[in-house]
């Protein structure tokens, strides 16, 4: 561990007391890498090759019914109207038909269809909050330690408060979960997301502050209930994680062989606040995802374009109703909004594809997924709209439509097991699945 001489004594004491109270054992994983124990997981890529990045984009409420489909392969692939914006990328595209998330069918509608989309875990109802660690955070916790920021969790719509049909609407607003009880807080502000990637504001003094609050919280940990200890551990871990980031600052660039094509941002810091114009907001977030990957500041991003049960409106697309109402209307206006979302997806993919990393493009070295909580506005989650673009560093041939409809292994969690393999994370089970998708 690299430490400045001034701080080393604190590290010693901090570690000692953390051990003393057994924090190490109780730590739930956050949006972070392993703190002690596990060695860093290396991607299956050799050292001189670019790392594989993972991205997931989400929009709620499904799509115009009957317009999400794909058939054929490679250049011959035909796409439904919703997917039309990614037509030019079809040779790098993998379309998954017929996948579903069994746990999402067990609750009610909307909120209980979203919170476990990337985990396949059962959702707690009745005001309790419990899902499962989502696939992006599993990657971040095991693989994100190589980068300055383990993962970015972005959104373009504020979270919903309240309870809907006995499920917290937190579930409608969070696809990324750092632990089964920790929905990862979303960054809505482009400027703050940008700062997270590139600002090195933290100082030695910050570290002293963090040392102090960590020591203090540990004193309290003794006298509170075990349930509260678990919650306080979220805090202890977060403090610890931020401290480690400060320590790690400057450690970047120690990779052997491969170097990112860009050292720093090639765009100005976005203006403070949330852009008034929704398309500008989304575009900035897309740019930040691309920039994060290109500079290798992080390798894991999720971008929630809107919530399930969303109230966003798109008057510039000549759609007057809110997104949720639009999804029930299922008309041309809704299709325009669907396509607008897929255009964001295509935008990220194209930009990555323009970045040459050796023989491959950045897109070839990525897996960018797009999915929704239901197929159409009618709450049908019997099969989900799922598509991945990018080659996972040569591990995922594109131009394919994989059809799992009617097959026993048609679980989203199986896809996630396969995806995790691409990052060298070989799990026996994930969510409700213990099988991989053979074709992936």
């Amino acid at each position, binding site marked *: 561990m690299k430490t400045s001489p001034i701080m080393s004594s604190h590290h010693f004491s901090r570690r000692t007391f953390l051990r003393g109270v057994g924090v190490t054992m109780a730590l739930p994983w956050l*949006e*972070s890498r392993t703190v002690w124990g596990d060695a860093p997981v290396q991607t299956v890529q050799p050292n001189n090759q670019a790392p594989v990045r993972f991205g997931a984009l989400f929009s709620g409420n499904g799509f115009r019914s009957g317009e999400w489909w794909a058939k054929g392969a490679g250049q011959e692939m035909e796409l439904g109207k919703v997917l039309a914006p990614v037509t030019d990328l079809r040779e790098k595209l993998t379309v998954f038909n017929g996948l579903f998330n069994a746990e999402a069918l*067990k609750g*009610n509608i909307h909120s209980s269809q979203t919170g476990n989309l990337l985990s396949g875990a*059962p959702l707690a109802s009745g*005001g309790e*909050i*419990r899902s499962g660690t989502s696939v992006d955070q599993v990657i971040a916790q095991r693989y994100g330690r190589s980068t300055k920021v383990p993962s970015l*969790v972005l959104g373009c719509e504020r979270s*919903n*408060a*309240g*309870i809907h049909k*006995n499920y*917290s*609407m*937190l579930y409608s607003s969070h696809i990324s979960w750092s632990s089964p*009880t*920790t*929905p*990862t*807080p*979303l*960054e809505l*502000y482009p400027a703050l997301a940008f700062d*997270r990637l590139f600002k090195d504001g933290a100082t*030695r003094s910050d570290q*002293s*502050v*963090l040392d*102090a*609050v960590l020591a*203090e*919280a540990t004193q*309290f940990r003794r*006298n*509170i*209930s*075990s*349930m*509260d200890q678990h*919650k*306080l551990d979220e*805090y202890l871990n*977060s*403090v610890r*994680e*931020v401290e480690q980031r400060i320590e790690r600052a400057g450690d970047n660039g120690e990779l052997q062989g491969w170097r990112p094509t860009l050292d720093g941002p090639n765009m100005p810091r976005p203006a403070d606040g949330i852009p008034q114009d929704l398309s500008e907001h989304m575009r900035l977030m897309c740019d930040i995802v691309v920039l994060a990957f290109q500079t290798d500041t992080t390798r894991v991003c999720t971008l929630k374009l809107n919530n399930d049960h969303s109230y966003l*409106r798109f*008057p510039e697309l000549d759609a*007057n*109703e*809110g997104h949720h*109402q*639009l999804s029930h*209307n299922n*008309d041309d206006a809704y299709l325009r909004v669907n396509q607008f979302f897929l255009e964001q997806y295509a935008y990220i993919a194209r930009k990555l594809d323009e970045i040459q990393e050796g023989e491959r493009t950045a897109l070839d070295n990525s897996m960018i997924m797009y999915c929704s909580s239901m197929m159409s*506005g009618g*709450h*049908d989650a019997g099969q989900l709209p799922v598509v991945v673009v990018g080659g996972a560093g040569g591990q995922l041939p594109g131009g394919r439509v994989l059809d799992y409809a009617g097959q026993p292994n048609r679980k989203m969690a199986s896809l996630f097991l396969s995806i995790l393999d691409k990052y060298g994370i070989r799990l026996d089970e994930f969510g409700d699945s213990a099988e991989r998708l053979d074709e992936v």
Partner: protein
Amino acid sequence: MTAPRQIIVSLCTALHLLLVYSVVAGAQPQTFDSLGARYDQETRPLLSRFCLECHSTDAKEGDLDLERFATLADVRQDTKPWQKAFEMLTLGEMPPEESDQPSADERDQLLGWVRQYLDAEALAQAGDPGPVVLRRLNNAEYTYTVRDLTGVELDPAREFPTEGAGGEGFTNVGNALAMSPSLLVKYLDAGKKIAAHAVLLPDGFRFSTSTMPGDWADEILGDIRALYATYSDTVALGLGSELGNVNVHGDTPLGLAGRLPLEKYLAAAATIAQQDEIQIGTVETIALKHELSASYLHSLWETLTAGEPSFLLDGFRERWRDATPDEAAALAAEVAGWQKTLFTFGPTGLIGRKGGRSRWMEAVSPLVTQVELRYAVLPAAEGQEGADTILDIVITDAGDGNEHDFVLLHQPRLVAADMPDILLSDLLQGGADTNAPADPAEPTEEPPTATEPVEAAWHCVPPVVLDASMFGKHPDGHEIDAHSLCVHAPAVIQIRLPAASTAGREFVSTASLDPDTGAEGSVQVLPVVHGVHPPPVIRSGLFTPEMSVIYSVVSSIFSDHQTVRFRGAILTGKGLAGENSAARRRINEAMDEYRQLFPPALCYTQIVPVDEVVTVLFHFREDDHLSRLMLEDAQRSRLDRLWTELQYVSESPLKQLDTLELQLEVVLGNPQYDSIVAMREPLYARGDEFRQELTDSEPHHLEALVEFATRVYRGRMTELMAEQLRGLYHQFRDHELPHDEAFRLTLARVFVASPFLYRLEDVPAETEPGPVSGAELANRLSYFLWSSLPDAELSAAAEEGRVTAGDTELLAQTQRMLHDPRVRRLATEFACQYLHIYDFDPLAEKSETHFPEFADLRGDMYEESILFFTDLFQNDGSLLGLLNADHTFVNDRLADFYGIQGIEGDVWHRLDGIQQHGRGGILALATTLAQQSGATRTSPILRGNWVSEVLLGERLPRPPKDVPQLADTVPEGLTERQLIELHSGQPACAKCHERIDPIGFALEEFDAIGRRRETSASGLPIDSHTRMPDGTEIEGLSGLRDYLLQTRRDQFLRQFCRKLLGYALAREVQLSDKPLLDDIMEKLRANDYRVSVAVEQIVTSDQFRKARGKE
């Protein structure tokens, strides 16, 4: 069609047996023995027949295994599945349609047992504090807490991620409040931002809305000026005004403010004078009534009614004694005349320089020992014959009698350049060229003060026409210089100066008191030329001298000394010891007394000198008159404190040194250098002293920080933690961070600390639930009612153990807090979340095309809802008023929107009789109506569902998969209602929609932004007649309101209480809370449904006062 519907209706009524309302109140609770026996004999066999095929340990459909419950003991291990089973049974969802169905009796038997078991279990577990997960402050609580701690409206959580809800649907539930590294960084940044608002003061610190030291100084300046303005007249007089002897450079827009508002006091004092009996109390009362300083009014009263005789005051006292309040202006004007004589004003920018003045307003004395009398006779215009000049030398006794008043006029003469002087004694003897003997002139004017009832000495004396015989002798007969005059005051010597011999010459003489006979005299001497000089205004034998002040300008940057001239000064004799005659001392004392009581200005309100182009001084304080005359002790020390703070915050003693050096550089080698360099020594000395003060204050800051942190930590501070805080500060200092930075970082650290961010509560030592500590209970109470930390009063009650000692103090604090304005936060955080209108303000969910007015109205709509609930809590309203209130709150815009006339302005009014406008209660709030609508049209489904789920707590079955779609816009020829009816008519949908749509139809009288309407969006008439699920026919808002009040009252109230309880406990309401809810309902019925009754029941419950024991 009717059969299944009846089942649904009756079943959904049954659902609410459990928590929503209790129909078995009073029924004998079942013993577990009898329940156990019945479980074995009746229930278990029924389960086997109808349930276990799917819900076996193997199949476990829907994650439900009922097979494992072999006996009641097993059932009691895990109650949750039975609550779920009860729900599914009552909803009619189980057993599923395709399975074997129990008979009605069997169903009743099964359901009956489950209900009785759950009731028994609820009683057995009653008061269980439940699982309450450690709560992080949510964004709102964090913000309110920071604001209450700092006293400043900061918004540090503005860019924090929004939070989700848990428990009963509120954002204050621990498990919905996650922490993450990125959020932690936000807290750290926010802590630093808050710390940047700290203003360090000599003995501690406070917070400011600003982070700029310049603004902090301005805030203190503002406070000082506000204090000044309380007692002084701050409307600045322009230059050249009444008191405009302030001479400043250029066009500096500096007027004379801070004046003594004498007229008000004289008017009030006249009021006192007219009262029969005068007591101290009366002065105080009058002062209070007129918002005057009692202290000054008292001094004024004392001086005017008593005190030593004074040549300046005696006449004034007489006039005041007879005056009525409306004559106060004239009295004040009289004083103003003397104020102009007794004071001068000068530029403050020069103060401190060598030879410069020391005050802005200085005393000036009109006392002299000799007076130059001069008058230049103008030559006649060409071709015209000049007129003779008539000069009166007016000599008065200065109002104090004429003993010793022998005035010597030294050799009056006419002088001209390059010509020999003409002595008046010669001229009058005919020695000169004149052949026209001086005729006695008739007095041409009446004395100017004829209307004044004065004892003016001089104009009682007829003018004496000067003749040659008057020269050379003293009135007592002895000889004096032959060319001089000696006159006994009062006298007027009239001199006719013939045009022929005097044109172009100047009349010159010197007046002084005769050294032998006039050493103790006092007179005024004033030459008055007929037709040229205005005659002096006489009061009490004195006239007010006229003063003029002339500044000589040395350079364009620095002005220099002033010259003061008087016309009609008071002449005193030289006395025995030089100029210090007894008369002079006496007059000086009288003038001092006058100055002390009547300073024209009380304070220098400008404070920052701007009357010079460049000044050394940053701030100039001159408020001794204000302090002495107007302020009470407490105000005086506050003023002193503010001044100390101003100096401290602006660091002016150090900054002045920089300015001084800069100026010295500029004037190096110039004459000004010497006068400025004189400031150096005192300013440097002050600078050193100030540096020491800065250093001395550092420990105070650290201690104040520890004390502040004690509040921030809300009862969790220990001596060890305090020591750790100090340690961190010293660690920063050891690493050479300056004090300010080390202080702010340590302060920031407090806002990242777990005892601030989390509501830590110790777990009871036993496994049984135990009472929480006083501090913990105080926190629970204040976060429930105020979404913030306890205030000083509640903290003290907790510390002294009163809050945890029985109900009395807890209830008293609760009542106090409910009446406090901070209960607005309960209205916002609880009530608005309960109604699903939280954060309505930025709602951008309406189509601008359809409702362009909405964007400007939504803030007002939200405010109405918040005010409605604030009023409910603050004034202990009836919960029935939620439905049938006949009042609401409006400003002009909202009144206009509601079609109500006569409300003007932005101010919010409570408006009664609102039902006649088709409003009243939560069903008719613009917020709820707009929230439960689409962006372009109303949605009876959303509104109906809202009433059903949110207001009544009903749980609807899950909608079918693939619900059919609705058209975006209503097709031609259909109302929104008809569109919905088309949709809901489909069999798959009817089951639920029959329950919710009719409720929504009743509210079709309101459009999608909550405006009353007669026709639908497509122009068709609105039909708000509808049939409730139980068959009741109703009409519109009033029908729905009456239906809910009469038929569904208990269900509605119980749901409100359930939500309030869930909010208070920050968890889901559970089975064991049922007895408490029963109790609340009973108390509400007995107490006119007053909301405080529900609050009181909650805060005194075991759930609220205890925590679960350790596992």
